[in-house]
């Protein structure tokens, strides 16, 4: 009956009152400011601290930058775990993503200053360029995350993936029965269109959205638009083929946007693993030859 005031009301109410903003704007760009401060501080240190004989990863300031960089890289790579480990507690993946983006960008400054602008053919430089590769792929990721969702949503038009495929199946069923009265040549065109795998085209087709071998488009070529629609069956099949081509186009656009949203992860993640390995080698070798 009477209960202790220990429920989640305040917390829930804060959530319901919270601003509704993207990961980039999170908490009025809190992590952007932190990242900018970090860059300014490290840059200022680099300029003002007299490093003998010259700026180098092996000076005390170089070690400091290296430690910050290593810490950041290891922490940034933990996002993959945070995302998948749904533990209790007051964390938000949006805040993590926000910090990941801005601190990741700050690494360009921290990492570059750590090198002291000394580039060579060795494992140290390898680690540096792997880091840049990870960051560049990440920048692509931020750009597509910020721009593509609207396109994805427009294209989806309230249909789920399953519904898009179902709609295609329904058109195919109609096509099959509508094509029965057709002659051999036109029938073959329809059959070929129906037999073609919806997902044909491979990774290239998916990313570029070009499907030169699309049997549906080819079939459409075999059904010229006749003014007045002389032949009933042929006209009906033609309109169904147009519908099929439109439905296919929606599915393909969906695949393309999803692919563009995900492709960078195929570089970002493996490069991160390689970076961690290279960093390990870099750190071990530095201390080995100390």
């Amino acid at each position, binding site marked *: 009956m009477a*209960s202790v005031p220990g429920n989640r009301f305040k917390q829930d109410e804060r959530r319901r009152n919270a601003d509704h903003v993207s990961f980039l704007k999170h908490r009025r760009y809190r992590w952007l400011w932190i990242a900018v401060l970090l860059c300014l501080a490290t840059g200022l240190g680099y300029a003002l601290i007299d490093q003998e004989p010259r700026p180098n990863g092996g000076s005390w300031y170089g070690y400091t930058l290296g430690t910050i960089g290593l810490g950041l890289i290891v922490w940034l790579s933990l996002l993959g775990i945070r995302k998948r480990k749904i533990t209790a507690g007051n964390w938000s993946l949006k805040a993590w993503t926000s910090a990941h983006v801005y601190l990741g960008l700050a690494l360009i400054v921290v990492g570059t200053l750590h090198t002291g602008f000394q580039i060579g053919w060795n494992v140290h430089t390898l680690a540096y360029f792997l880091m840049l590769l990870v960051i560049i792929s990440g920048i692509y990721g931020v750009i597509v995350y910020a721009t593509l969702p609207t396109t994805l949503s427009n294209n989806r038009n309230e249909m789920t993936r399953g519904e898009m495929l179902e709609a295609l199946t329904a058109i195919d069923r109609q096509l099959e029965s509508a094509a029965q009265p057709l002659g051999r040549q036109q029938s073959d065109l329809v059959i070929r269109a129906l037999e073609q795998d919806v997902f044909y085209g491979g990774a290239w087709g998916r990313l570029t959205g070009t499907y030169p071998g699309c049997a549906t488009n080819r079939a459409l070529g075999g059904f010229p638009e006749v003014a007045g629609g002389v032949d009933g069956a042929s006209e009906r099949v033609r309109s169904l083929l147009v519908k099929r081509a439109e439905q296919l186009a929606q599915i393909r656009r969906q695949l393309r946007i999803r692919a563009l949203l995900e492709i960078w992860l195929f570089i970002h993640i493996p490069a991160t693993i390689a970076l961690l390995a290279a960093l390990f080698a870099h750190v071990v070798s530095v201390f080995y030859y100390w």
Partner: protein
Amino acid sequence: MSDLYEVAIIGSGPAGMSAAGQAAKRGMAHVLLEKTDHLSDTIYKYQAGKFVMATPSNLALRAGGYEEGVSAGMQFDEGTRENILGIWNQHCGVNDPTIPVVEGEIESWGVNVKLNAEVTKIEGDKGDFTITLKSGEVLKAKTIILAIGTQGNPNKLRCPGADHPMITSQLDDPADHYDKHITVVGTGDAGIENALGLAEPALGNTVTILNRGKDFAKAKQRNADWLTEADADGKLKIRYGTSPAEVRDGEMVLETETGEETIPCDLIIARIGSQPPRGFIESMGVEFTSADRSAFPVLSPVFETTKAGIFVIGALAGYPLIKHCMNQGFDVIEYLASGESPKPADEPLLEEVFADLPGNKSVDYWLDVYQKNVSIFGGLSTLQMRELMLDSTCKAFGPGEVIFRRNEQGSSLFAIASGSVAVEVDPNDPSITVPIGEGSIFGEVGLISGRRRGSTIRAAEDTIVVELSRKAALKLISSSPEANDAVTRISIERQILQMFGSGLTPADIAPLVESAETVQVPAGKVVIQEGDEDKDLFILRLGSMLVEKDIGGRQIFLSYLPAGSFFGEMAVIDGSKRTATVKASVKSEVIKLDGEMFNALLDTKPQLRSKMLEVMEGRRQTNDFIESQKGDVGGALELYTKTAKFLSEQGIGEATDALLIDEKLCIGCDNCERACADAHEGLSRLDREAGKSFAHLHVPTSCRHCEHPHCMADCPPNAIRRGADGEVSINAETCIGCGNCKSFCPYGVIRMDPVPPKKPSLLEWLFFGKGPGPGEASYSWRKKNGDPDLAKKAIKCDMCAGIDGGPACVRACPTGAAIRVSPDKFLTFAKITEDVE
């Protein structure tokens, strides 16, 4: 002519059968009379294989050997129709070939059963009743127990041919009928369910359902929706404004709004209700509590009617549950045999209810205290009082102890049996309190609106209260007109006081309360029309309202009003025309106050006037701000209106906490779904992709935690509750997997699934590829690794109750696309048009 029986029991349902069994054990000369050729007709007519529940689960089954010295008697436990009837047949020594014999040792009590014995007349007085059967046979008995229920007396069609053999009032199995022309009369739930079953396309039936009116007020919303959907799909035909005119061989004449029409017909299902056979009972000299159609006979605490020697038990006494019925049968026989009533079966339960109260007093003492002191219990009989208290919690509080707190979730009603409480009306200053005294009630606003508690209430002295669950309170209100009047009056008075505060006393507003009227408003109905000149003030006590204004020829959304707000004050105060249109976003209830009376009140209370002017000024500013947006080129105003409308169509208006996805941010990673599954033993309670979108705002298939949850409408084990944080959740322990909630939910957010097997840990998956990985495992994996014997249960969003940090779906969204909102905070211009990127 036969011997004089000690007792004649009429009706062999659970109540009568239990009484007969007990009489047999007691060695009383008895006879059990049953109209049909089998026992327990109501249960017999259940669909084959139906699972029958044994509720209330905490009530002891008397007849099953509750007291020492009485050997185990009539058995009853939840089970299938066949199992239950099989056991009872064996108890009564009845051999019914349609019911399989139940294995195991079941005693026969030597009950004297007469089947096919319909009673047509009862005459005489206590000690010497004469019972005439339809067959002409005459029996004599000293006492009579009526246990005839209410089902055996279906209403007949009111037209010529009402006795035609093709008319039936029940349907065992729709699949028994195919390729027929079938007419269903009546659009209550039973009629609709029958019509839908018969209209299955595979059966090839042509089904017509007659609706005398235009709507389906008697049916559950879900059933009505299904029916209209089936009509739209051409599966059956609904005929509105139509009633039967005549039944003939092979055809039926319909009376439509445009004249008579004859349709082919092979079967008529008449589902137009049933009634206690009142005339028959009254002819014996038994009085009813009121003239109301649904009234029950007046009964003493031992179930004796106003006619000495005639007892009424079971559904006819107002107790539809099997356990109650069986206990009553036992109790009445014990009373007749021993001259004193055994302690009612609920005595130990009531002892528990009163256990926390001081002084170690008896159950009777407390029942008496509550009934005498609490005004709303005045009209209840002892039996009703006992039943009410069973569903309630009784507690004592010391001075200063908190009974409930502001913003706590709670929909129960409290009544003060002794002492008094203090209401902290000002959130900022707990020292400002208003007293509520002995005999009165509190908590009624939460009960009616479903919203959080409006203020903290503490005991002012040593206080004893009773807390009625929402269900018990609603039952009380519907069964006792006195209680209904009292609760309505008090709630109106309190709502006015709470809302307008400013030093008003109940005496000040008494005339206003007297003139107040509660009005039901269906969803979409306009309460105030812009430009009209009416001058009433409204208080929204249930549901929510949308305020719109005509700006440049377009209806522009101004604001959302949650339950507990008032509206219409502008026209009342400054005498202007209505400045905006207010309409219900969901089914609502408003209190209508007379505007002139309110103005008169304002004249005497300048403080109140200034407060009202303040509120008005605030609302005006909002309106002006929105109006100032009309020149906006980006169409923000239009977007705002359309979005608000869209969200309210998607049920956000009745939500308390709903998930939305901003598709300008959503990358489609489905991490919300995965997080949901991983936070809840492996099944996701949301479908991100499904659902409607508008202007890139997507309402996924996910629970809205409605103010008055549809899913709670009919949960047989009462397993759905609203928790402390406002979440509506299903208790997996007590859920029986019946699927009622799933069919009641208008938003399709409840799924039925067994608990999936445990997955290997995340690291095992990450490093060794073990298991299906994060998120909901595929159906095939669950099937392969799960326990095949686990039953399906209803599962839905519980707002991550008990999980520190709150809803996992929101926490796990990487871009900020997933948000959970409440309508009163989100349906504002600032939130909807917020620039998120």
